[in-house]
């Protein structure tokens, strides 16, 4: 078993999660989602095994004006184009590549404090996230078994009609962009 220990040393803990999600999407024949998580898994493996040979950069700083223009442009395209149109696809691919580029930098500085309160907070949020994922998973399974997605709606089923309206779409877009910006700028002042 020593070889296994050697192979798995330093594994990204998200990798088994990504592998499971890839498999799940394959089983439900959602091949695009499966491809996304498979590519994500490859990115995590490449990083874990240090197969990306270029020099690890420092954190990149984006000018406020660049961000504002990028957000305004993205929101305009996603809001005014047809949902799922080629404009959306190209823009989302560009956003995905840029986001990965922006978060791929060397860890720097001390890790923010990890006292008992932080551990408790981490467990609470993790429990909520797992509960949400399991609820969604079982809703999907029951909907498939009983052929009844009204009694067992997944989040997509609930959200889809909202996203078809311009107002719902604008709200979701705003939320999604703000979360993305928050993640990119997280911990910047620390």
């Amino acid at each position, binding site marked *: 078993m020593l070889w296994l220990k050697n192979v798995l040393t330093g594994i990204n803990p998200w990798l088994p999660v990504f592998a499971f999600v890839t498999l799940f999407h394959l089983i439900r024949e959602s091949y695009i989602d499966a491809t996304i998580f498979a590519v994500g898994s490859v990115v995590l493996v490449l990083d874990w095994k240090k197969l990306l040979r270029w020099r690890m950069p420092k954190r990149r700083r984006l000018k406020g004006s660049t961000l504002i223009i990028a957000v305004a442009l993205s929101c305009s395209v996603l809001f005014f184009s047809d949902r*799922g149109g080629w404009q959306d696809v190209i823009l989302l691919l560009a956003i995905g590549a840029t986001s990965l580029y922006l978060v791929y930098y060397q860890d720097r500085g001390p890790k923010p404090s990890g006292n008992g309160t932080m551990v408790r907070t981490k467990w609470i949020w993790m429990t909520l996230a797992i509960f949400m994922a399991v609820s969604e998973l079982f809703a999907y399974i029951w909907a498939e078994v009983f052929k009844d997605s009204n009694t*067992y709606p997944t989040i997509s089923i609930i959200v889809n009609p909202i996203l078809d309206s311009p107002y719902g779409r604008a709200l979701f877009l705003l939320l999604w962009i703000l979360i993305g910006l928050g993640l990119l700028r*997280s911990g910047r002042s620390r």
Partner: protein
Amino acid sequence: MLSIPEWEYLGVIGLGLAAWLIGRLRPDILAPFGLLVARLMHHRNNRLAIMIIWWWLGWHFFTV
């Protein structure tokens, strides 16, 4: 009448809001959510995975 999964989703959202609020008002009980995110995003492992998941959510809802 809401279905069981809808109650579950609403319950998680409600508890999430409560946890977020407690983090803001009583940081001695629960750490602020922003601090937890900053701690997670400190590691490249988490940064890569979380950004991929965030991006997939956008892809899933805007292109399906």
